[in-house]
Each structure stands twice: as structure tokens, then as C-alpha cells.
């Protein structure tokens, strides 16, 4: 229990939706990427990819429609897409 409380202190960005909304879209995208994508698989997988926008969109659509990440809102998907396109695009 103590560690969970500590986590809340150590990860202030996760503390609440209102605070989060003040982040830049890319910072917000990073946070949602790390929070949601890491729930089912390690982040090593998406971080190993170098994909164009169309392919990233395809991947995210599949996560929602094929792999059951149905809790992702349209806003989550949009912000995550912008983040991965920017950071994990073609070299």
C-alpha cells in the first residue's frame, strides 16, 4: 500500500485528468502510450517499430478491434497515434 502511494507521488503526471489536460499533445500522447500500450504487452515492441502514419493507424485500429483494447477512447487513439508517428516513424 505504501508503495502505491509512493507511486502516485513519483508519477505526478498520472495524478489526475485535469492536470493531464494541460500537457502538450505530444506529452499527453506519450503518457497515454506508456499507460495504455504497456498494459497488455511490453513497450519494447512498439518502440522497436519504425512505421509510417498509415501503418501506425492500422496497428492502433487492430489493437482496439482485434486485440480487445476497447477502453481506448477516440481521443486516446488520436494522441497515441500522433506520438508514435513522431517518435517511431521511418528513419
Amino acid at each position: 500500500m505504501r508503495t502505491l502511494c509512493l507511486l502516485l507521488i513519483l508519477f505526478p503526471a498520472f495524478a489526475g485528468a485535469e492536470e493531464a489536460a494541460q500537457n502538450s499533445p505530444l506529452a499527453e500522447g506519450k503518457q497515454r502510450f506508456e499507460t495504455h500500450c504497456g498494459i497488455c504487452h511490453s513497450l519494447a515492441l512498439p518502440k522497436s517499430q519504425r512505421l509510417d502514419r498509415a501503418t501506425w493507424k492500422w496497428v492502433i485500429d487492430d489493437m482496439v478491434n482485434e486485440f480487445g483494447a476497447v477502453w481506448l477512447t477516440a481521443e486516446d487513439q488520436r494522441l497515441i497515434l500522433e506520438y508514435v508517428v513522431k517518435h517511431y516513424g521511418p528513419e
Partner: protein
Amino acid sequence: MKKEPRKLDRDRLRGILEDNGGSPEDLERFNEYMSRRGFLRRTGVIAALAGMGAGAEVTLQRLFGQGLIPVGWAAEAETKAIASKPDMIIHNDRPVNGEFSPHLLDDNITPSPRHFVRNNGLTPQRAKNKDPQGWELAIDGEINTPLKLTLDDLKKMPAITKSLLIECGGNGRGNFVPKVRGNPWDRGAVACSEWTGVPLKEILNRAGLKSSAIYTAHYGEDPPIGAAPPFSRGIPIDKAMEEHTLVAYKMNGKDLEALNGYPVRLVVPGWIGSCSQKWLNRIWIRDQVHDSNKMTGYSYRVPAYPVVPGSRPPKTDMVIATSWVIKSLITRPAANTRIDIGKTFKVRGHAWAGENQVDSVYISTDYGLNWTKAVLTQPRNQYAWYTFETELAFKGKGYYEIWARAVDNQGVTQPARQPWNPKGYLGNVIHRVPVLVGV
């Protein structure tokens, strides 16, 4: 005024899990995870979940409502399982995906610690504990007599032992241009170990196939990640009845490795690895081509015709990927080896050809201008890889590449550039190994 996020403590998390149908095993896993020390060092997912603050409870309810147990709790256990493969290049640790450098695959029979791992779900608890109690293989569908076989039942049936090649359908994906999605396998998601088991045809003959039987559908006991459906693929009845298609319970003379499918897996040699279901517990005989999500759409399917690199044809133009194609791997020397000028050294490697035979392997050291034939050793049985060997010496200093190109008995050879498909399957571009001479 800002609302203070409600803190999620252990009991609240446990309550949410319980209320949303967490199984006793999930609850036990949860208790175990939450009671450990060193928790912070394993942050990752659980940190993210805990850190969701105000939204966490709703999110967790959604996740648990999906039957999703945050698999981050299993991450540490997966890491422990990986310890049995010390030299593995890990692409992903949850689910576990790892391969070996080509120079570590030199053995004719791949040792178990060097057999690649391509998991789609989590490693089952039974496999980690090496506990066969309660395991059964169910055979049902288009057969006369449904069967349920225990491990003892299987071991009483006539068994065979063969060297059989298994290769992930995505092996070589990392060499596709433009890049495609998925684990960026280089060349090491292939192995040829010695497998012992009952030919699937013996089991299907015992069950009695109906004339309506045309395809298999395989299931395993690995928990899917997230809310993904169970991973399931299948093969045509002809391949299921082929004598080398095994229900295997020994790998190199011992129990299967946890990561390679303990206690029992299918070995469908020569075909893309996903046909060789691990942690096998059910084979459903179907009266149609299996239509799971891993048999349809773009999964394990390739375009029916060559496509523009980077493009995606309609689903209706995709066909199921089946057997592997002609391929070779240089295992000696290792990439970037330094070699003395004039010194004679051995070049070695393996070649294989899916359903075909390997006819010959050629080596080039001048970017494919000239090719010389290597000595080819026949495999001990069909579907094992061939071994090739030759000797080389370089007369002058510099950077050289050793290329290998195999040819099958139909005259089909490996391409110099990788033909492209949207998910990066069946990559077989010629292998190039750089060496440095006299520098």
C-alpha cells in the same frame, strides 16, 4: 477546486478484480505480486495502472470487465522463464519473443537453450511449474470418437524421434524495406531440434476422421495478453496426416522447455511456426478452412500477387501463408569476424526448403558476381535442415561480405532483394555476412 484523486490501495485493487470476475488464480497472482518487496523496481505497467489516479478505477473496471488481468503482474515470471535462454536476443519480454545470432545456430541439432521463442500469450503456469497434472489433449469436431488424452496416454502410443525445423513465419521481417509492423526478426527465429512424439495421424486415425474433415484448428493453454482472443491456427488435413507432423512431448530427449510449449506442442515442420501450436490442449477438426482471427484478414496471410512495397492490398486478395520457401543461413564465420590475409577458414551454415529438397548452396565473396558451390550434407530425415561447408581465403586486406544462396530441387533460389508483403512474412533474402580481412 481540484478533486483529490482517490488513491488505489491494494485492497481496492483486489476488490475491483474480484467484483469483475477475477479467477482464484488471478487473485492469487495478484496477492503474490502485491506482497513482494522490490516492487518499485518492477514499476512498468503496475505503476501506470496505479498512477492513473482518478480514472484508474473506471479503467480497471473496464479491463477486468474484459476478462483482462493486467499482465504486468506476470512480467517478472516471464523474465524468469527467459533465464533458461541466456544468449537470446529479446525483442519483447511480454509476450516473450527472442531469437539467436546466426553463429549460435551452428549445431546440426539446435540445443534447447538456443531454440527461438515466439509467444503470442503468456507462458502458462503449468509450463513454468513443469506440472503435467490435469493436462489433457482434446480431439473433437469432424471425427467418429472424440478423444481426451493425458500425457501418459500419449506416451503409451507409438512415438517417433526426428530432427524437425520450425521457423517463425516472420523470420527475416527486419530486412523488409520499407519497414513492416511486428517483431523485427533478423534471421535467428529458426531452429532444428530433435522432437519426439506421436504422429498426429496416429491420433486422428484413432479418433476416426469423417469424410467432412478438411482442416484442423489448434488451441493451447497460454493465457492471451490483454483481451485478445485465444491464439489459434490450423492446417489442411493432408498436412495433419503427413507422417512428420508430430504431437511432441520431448525436445532433444527431455521434457519440452517451458517457453517452447511444455508439456506438449505440435510440430508442423517446414510450415510457418504458428502452425506448431505450443501448450497444445485441443485440436478441433473442422469441415471448413479454420477461420480464427489468425487465419483471416492480414494475419499469417500474404498477397496472392506481388504488391507495391508499402502498399496494402484488399483482404480478399490475401492468401494463407503455409510452407516456408528456399532459404539458407551462414553460421560460420560470425558477422564482423577479423580474418588474417591468406588464412584459410571454413564457411558453414544450414539450408532448408519448406516442402522441397535443397539441391545446392552457392557462396559469393564479390557481391554476387561469382558463385562457387559449397559441399552439401544431406539431413538425417525430411524437414531437417541441410548443412553446407566450404573453405575460403582472402588474398588482400579489406571489407568483404560472404553471401550464401541456396537452390531447391525445383530450381527456385533466394532473391538478392527481399520481395515485400504487408506483414513481413516468409523473408528469404540471401544472407550476407561481413568480415574484415587484415585490418
